[in-house]
């Protein structure tokens, strides 16, 4: 049998670690400008926490654009809906939220987040079918349709919940800061970082260690060939869209708790930030 092996070794693929290192580099560069180490620590953790919340909201957008080539300007709708849905659980159970017990706080926070993700994911299913399916491959129409969807969602939230800002207090055990010497690190920001890291690790795990992840990566490159191998990429697209919408819903809950308020235009306010992050 003829040996078709090339004589030389393949060049090693370059790992692009700069994006991962960039936040560390920027934060270190800020140290001499801030001057005080304790202030720098406090501000760095705060900015990482905010970055992680934006990452959670934007990760779905990245997946949807990367795999489906869909410019979803309505992504902010899932953020707002996620936040409003959380109030359906957190406000009636305010006594649990205000209880001085971490477990009681988490017992109400976790189902609120899960319900928000589920409702945002379901809304994603509807939006994909109704607004995006007719305009696949047409970026301009996608922008028009999804921006329209965002406006409709925002107005629907006003109609259902009214125009007032809804206060959403942080659970008691997530208030305040851990103090290490002169460094104060807000508890909620630590939680936001933790959730962001879990989402990041989960996405990396799925994309790099599962067959579904391989299909997503292959689909980004050549969806036609994925179909020719026998996989229904439309279902995969839908699953990714729903996952992205659900993550935006989770981000909406986290952002609402961070700002301690919910309002219908929070999604559209965040749209520029999450597109920038993407």
């Amino acid at each position: 049998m003829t040996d078709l092996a090339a004589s030389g070794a393949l060049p090693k693929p370059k790992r692009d670690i700069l994006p991962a290192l960039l936040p560390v580099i920027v934060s270190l560069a800020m140290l001499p400008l801030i001057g005080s180490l304790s202030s720098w620590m406090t501000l760095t953790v705060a900015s990482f926490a905010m970055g992680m919340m934006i990452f959670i909201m934007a990760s779905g957008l990245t997946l949807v654009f990367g795999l489906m080539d869909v410019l979803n300007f309505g992504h902010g709708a899932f953020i707002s809906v996620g936040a409003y849905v959380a109030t359906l659980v957190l406000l009636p159970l305010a006594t649990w939220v205000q209880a001085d017990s971490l477990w009681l706080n988490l017992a109400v926070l976790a189902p609120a987040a899960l319900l928000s993700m589920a409702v945002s994911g379901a809304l994603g299913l509807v939006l994909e079918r109704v607004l995006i399916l007719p305009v696949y491959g047409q970026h301009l129409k996608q922008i028009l349709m999804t921006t329209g969807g965002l406006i409709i969602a925002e107005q629907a939230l006003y109609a259902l919940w009214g125009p007032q800002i809804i206060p959403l207090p942080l659970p008691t055990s997530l208030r305040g800061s851990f103090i290490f010497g002169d460094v104060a690190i807000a508890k909620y920001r630590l939680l936001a970082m933790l959730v962001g890291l879990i989402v990041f690790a989960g996405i990396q795990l799925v994309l790099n260690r599962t067959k579904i992840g391989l299909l997503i990566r292959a689909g980004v490159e050549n969806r036609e060939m994925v179909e020719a191998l026998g996989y229904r990429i439309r279902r995969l697209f839908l699953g990714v869209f729903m996952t992205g919408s659900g993550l935006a819903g989770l981000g909406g809950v986290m952002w609402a708790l961070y700002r301690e308020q919910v309002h219908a235009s929070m999604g559209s306010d965040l749209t520029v930030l999450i597109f920038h992050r993407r």
Partner: protein
Amino acid sequence: MTDLLTLAGVHTYVGRYHILQGIDFGVAEGQTTMLLGRNGAGKTSTLRTIMGLWQASAGQITLDGQRIEKRATPEIARLGVGYVPESMAVFSDLSVKENLILAARDGPLDDRRLDWIFGFFPALRRFWLARAGALSGGQKQMLSIARAIVEPRKLLLIDEPTKGLAPAIVVALIECLGEIKRRGATILLVEQNFHAARELGDKVLVMDNGKIVHRGEMAALAKDVALQEHLLGLSLEAHQ
């Protein structure tokens, strides 16, 4: 010998262009049928239409007794059709191993079958964990073919596998496809390399302007220089 695949009166439009204009042919089970013709004759369009990547606007396509002309591509693939496109279409961001894992949709990779494939394509074993995008053109073609045969398939649709490859690699590919054929595979092979066509083909179909203009035994066409020149504009001798 019964036909595994039959096309009857198949028409395909791409946009407003009428590409396939009433194609009729059969692909006999266990044989290699060559699909020849000049550039733009409709060979790739025929494979894409069979695969469901382009929808036939009229006519019937039957695979192993089942009508497939209205079915979606994944469903056709799951009926046992392996497809090697002209562009190779390996997933360059994925490793060789990951490309083959995706192709093995019915379960985990079979080690014995992999050893069989590595017998043809040792480079794939060597670069098992390397990104497919870093492979040479020939190695990508190996991977593309390996993907189609990593699990047994009823029918292989292979589009110009030797295109743009170095002569040494073309020889090896012909050897590989010959071995796949000897194992009883049914192959519909689009090829511009007449040497490869003569080596591999049992039957031949020649297309021109979206129609089948000749059908017969490959051996007979290989011997008939005048017919080659009439149908293809070139003779096999010119390619020796």
